[in-house]
């Protein structure tokens, strides 16, 4: 029999990619951390939900999740409103400076964001006093350029006759966008939401810099603070950290699995075009 090398390689790859996540879940449920090979399998005697209680006590999961949600929601809202408008204009309207805006959109994607952290910190925290505020958190991410690009690509694919007809009927551009174009690119909107979601939900450096007040920190920030400072004093630090990690990773992973088709096609598209 021929050995299916291809399949074995892929299976090995899948194990390497998924095992840490499985281990994260197991570790979050262990009463005593067990780093032996046996510890990688669930043991009924060593299972507990105590770690979730512990991390909740330390960083207040509910509040942290709410902060992550507001941060992410604000970015999605900004992208959905202003990003769709920009994407539509770039695809369908002829106006002066369109080429320049398009080039800028592409250019932005290669500017390393980290270079901007110091000037943005000076501006947002020192000049505008927006430290410890949702607005300060959201501002640098407010419109996701990758999503604008995706919207543009989808609007571009619609037939021109549709827009000609609407213009002859005297519909305003805003009306055409709202009544005709948007209903036809629903999948693009979903893709835009997904692509935008993982940015702020997983973002660490920026909210870490500007939120010092614990009750405003998104989960990624409060969990990392727990990891670097508090965990040394906890009874089962790994268990609590892993419990927090599960809560942080779960929404993104679940969303991605539920909508994996949209997610993959969007990356494919931008990949081919890029």
């Amino acid at each position, binding site marked *: 029999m021929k050995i299916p090398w291809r399949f074995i390689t892929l299976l090995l790859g899948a194990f390497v990619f998924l095992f840490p996540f499985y281990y994260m879940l197991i570790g979050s449920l262990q009463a005593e951390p067990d780093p032996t090979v046996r510890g990688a399998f669930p043991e009924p005697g060593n299972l507990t939900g105590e770690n979730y209680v512990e991390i909740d006590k330390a960083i207040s999961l509910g509040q942290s999740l709410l902060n992550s949600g507001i941060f992410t929601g604000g970015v999605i809202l900004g992208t959905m409103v202003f990003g769709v408008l920009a994407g539509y*204009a770039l695809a369908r309207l002829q*106006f*002066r400076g369109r080429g320049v805006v398009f080039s800028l*959109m592409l250019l932005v994607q290669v500017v390393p964001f*980290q*270079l901007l952290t110091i000037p943005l910190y000076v501006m947002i925290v020192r000049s505008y006093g927006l430290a410890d505020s949702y607005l300060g958190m959201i501002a640098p991410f407010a*419109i996701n350029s990758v999503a604008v690009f995706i919207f543009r690509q989808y609007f571009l694919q619609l037939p021109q006759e549709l827009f000609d007809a609407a213009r002859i009927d005297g519909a305003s551009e805003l009306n055409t966008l709202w009544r005709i174009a948007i209903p036809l690119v629903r999948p693009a909107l979903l893709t835009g939401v997904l692509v935008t979601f993982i940015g702020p939900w997983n973002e660490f450096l920026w909210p870490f810099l500007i939120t010092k007040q614990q009750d405003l920190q998104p989960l990624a920030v409060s969990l*990392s603070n727990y990891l670097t400072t508090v965990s040394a004093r906890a009874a089962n630090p790994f268990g609590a950290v892993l419990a927090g990690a599960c809560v942080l990773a779960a929404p993104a992973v679940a*969303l991605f699995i539920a909508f994996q088709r949209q997610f993959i096609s969007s990356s494919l598209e931008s990949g081919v075009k890029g």
Partner: protein
Amino acid sequence: MSSRLATAPSPTGSARPAGRRGLLGTVLGKQPIGSAFVAPYLVFLAAIFAYPLAFAVYMSFHDYFFTAPGAIVDRPFVGFDNYVTVLSDPAVRRSFLNVGIFLVINVPLTVILSLVLAYGLNSAIRWRTFFRVSYYVPYVAASVAVVGVWLFLFNENGLVNTVLGPLAPSPSWLVNSKLAMPTIAIYVTWKQLGFFILLYLAALQNVSKDLYEAASMDGAGRIKSFWNVTVPGVRPATTLVVLLATVTGANLFTEPYLLTGGGGPNGASASPVLVMYQKGIEQGNPDIGSAIGVLLVIGVLLLALIERRFVSKEDR
């Protein structure tokens, strides 16, 4: 052009308004409302990218320090002083060396592994969706969360060392000054690989099937046709993967901050962005931090140019 053609030959009777519209049309475009639609995005780009970029360069040439909002102070021009300070600081130089080590490991590993796995996925194989999803999971999960489990796996008494037994390195992975940076490089490779696999999957669909058939008719085996058909066929994607992996690597912050407790041991895994944060914000020298950032970006641009040359040169 087309806008002028469409509006200039106006019907009789309404010559004046049509003429004005035609003039406006050439100046503002056929649908000037488009400018209003992109205005918020343009303001965003100006405020969040263009201005801070210029501001960073400005700070790096001045003696800039934090003040209370609204305070007017003198911030003299100091020429290249900040750059001299930065370049003569061993911690900064170490961090640039570290990111070099990181890229030397991360970039080739990313290209090879993502191409091989994408090649394996690009066929009618059982569980295709399952594989694709599982490769993508680390990419969508928050790094802060995943770092937690890596700390658990790679600590002194973690599962990895337990399995390795006597082969476990001492001192352990993340506290070993020789292994800390390579471990981070492997972590990031693992975390980002799913994204690059998807890029290659898209590129593979553009490689013509005829070429594979021709190769197999010439008697090329699977490995030979991979090397002679697939690898050249996806070269544009390889350029993109190399560039994106380099930019991601240059932006490294979360991993050294959390995995090795702030770039330890003894700065052996500090990245330029981490040092930039420590000097610029923790120690309150935004001018020094900006100078590090500007140097980093210049370095990345130079590296990207060299890489592009190098990857596309093989074409000829």
